[in-house]
């Protein structure tokens, strides 16, 4: 595990030296700006009752379509090259003939991806103090913190999924498409499925609601730090990392 800082530094450096990460960060900055604008606008309107899902801070991040569309694009964009690019360019050969273990390589790539993911969320957090101190809108800090934690573990899961698909192929596009499809299912199809299930009054509505990312995010946004969701995210992340290590180990068999 002692090589992780070295590997992590290289991964982060290569993120910031390539155009992809910067574009994604820029896009998220734009989304954050627009959403904040919308938030301030809606708060400026008087006498509107807010409650539950209509909570303004919930609309700011977890209830905002641009945010999730951005996520759908950002996750594949950030994770697709992690292993696929090393396989394509052949740099995986010097990497895995240095005295480092597959676990070290996978964990540091994952940490780099999670780091970039958190960088995407930073602009959203940056605006809030202005709202609090400048705008004197004394929102409750608790839900913001629980949303932050929930989105972080969610990101750990997303990045692990992207990393796994990236390890399967030497083609970044294939990795991106597979990751996109999976994340799309988790974000969009699960919510659509939930809507359909409730419409049909089906028994599996509750089950699909549990895995629906949007539902999880809105729960976090209302200040409920549901540990079941956190453990779901973290166990999926660990499983994906384990599978990625196995894929890299299996590669030695040729």
């Amino acid at each position, binding site marked *: 595990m002692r*090589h992780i800082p*070295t*590997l992590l*530094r*290289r991964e982060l*450096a*290569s993120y910031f*030296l*390539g155009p992809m990460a910067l574009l994604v960060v820029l896009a998220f900055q734009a989304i954050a700006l627009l959403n904040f604008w919308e938030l301030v606008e809606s708060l400026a309107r008087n006498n509107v009752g807010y409650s539950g899902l209509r909570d303004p801070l919930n609309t700011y991040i977890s209830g905002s379509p641009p945010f999730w569309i951005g996520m759908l694009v950002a996750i594949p964009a950030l994770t697709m090259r992690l292993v696929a690019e090393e396989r394509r*360019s*052949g*740099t*995986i*050969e*010097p990497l*895995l*003939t*240095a*005295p*480092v*273990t597959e676990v070290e390589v996978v964990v540091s790539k994952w940490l780099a991806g999670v780091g970039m993911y958190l960088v995407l969320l930073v602009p959203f957090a940056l605006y809030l103090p202005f709202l609090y101190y400048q705008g004197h809108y004394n929102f409750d800090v608790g839900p913001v913190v629980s949303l932050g934690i929930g989105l972080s573990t969610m990101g750990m899961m997303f990045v692990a999924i992207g990393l796994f698909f990236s390890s399967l192929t030497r083609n970044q596009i294939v990795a991106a498409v597979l990751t996109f499809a999976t994340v799309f299912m988790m974000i969009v199809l699960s919510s659509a499925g939930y809507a359909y299930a409730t419409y049909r009054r089906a028994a599996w509505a509750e089950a699909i609601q549990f895995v629906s990312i949007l539902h999880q995010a809105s729960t976090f946004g209302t200040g409920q730090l549901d540990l079941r969701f956190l453990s779901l995210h973290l166990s999926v992340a660990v499983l994906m990392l384990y599978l990625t290590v196995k894929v890299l180990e299996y590669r*030695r*068999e*040729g």
Partner: protein
Amino acid sequence: MIEVERLSKLYHSARAVDRVSFGVGRGEIVGLLGPNGAGKTTTMRMLTTFLAPTSGRAVLSGHDVLDEPLEVRKKVGYLPENVPLYPEMRVREYLNYRSRLKDVPRSRRRAAVDGVLERCKLVDVESRVLGHLSKGYRQRVGLAEAMVHDPDILVLDEPTAGLDPMQIREVRALIRELGERHTIVLSTHIMSEVEAVCGRVIMIVKGKVALDDRLDHLQTQSAIIIEARGPAPAIRKALEATPGVKRVGLTDHQGDVARFEVQALDDADLREDLARRVVQNGWALRVLDLRRSSLEERFVRAVRDASIARDAESEYPTGTEAA
């Protein structure tokens, strides 16, 4: 330093490397020579633990590639084919990064990187981005990287591929120099490279060792070239009848002029005897020459023999294989 026993690698069902065995002693420079696709790269990848052997074993510096891959990696410096590098990194930054991965102690890291930059003549380009380097410099960065942790063994896969003649000379000189401190296994399909650099050659053809011998020993083997005017079968018979002749081969036949390659027992110089034979029979002697049989001929012969053996093997499967 390196012990390889019956090492095999199966890709799906194709045998890329087939029961290869050899040993390399400390300080030797060994050339793995073979046509493209012979299994050189696969062999090297197994030695460097990038690939796991299907069967057989390889022990480097006392560590087995399957049991202690991390220990092997610490003792081996590897220059992969085509030298894959991270294009966005700078030369010194890359060597620093690699020396950290390879556990060069912090106190020695700077000296180690400075040392390899110096030895590979990279000081001028140390702050250049790797993606912008020419092929020759990339190759040198790869070499510098391979030896930054001062390994016992260097495994170099086609170290001069794609270089211009001047760069090839430089890289070869560098490898010879490295041979004084490290055990080196390098692969190539260029015969003259082996002759220029290596002390020993292992020919790999179709995944098998076709020849394993010291170069100075190989070079003493000589052949006598005779060209004469006359009936080829009769001349051949006469040459074969000369005492001390081991083998006679007809290498060329145009009109009534025939060209033979004669190999003598114990490398005796039979030129005078052979010339007398030809002249006594009334044939005109056109060429008489003693030639050290070149590595190239040995190579071509080994490739040919191997493919004949392989064909025979596949046509008439032996009992053990059929079972």
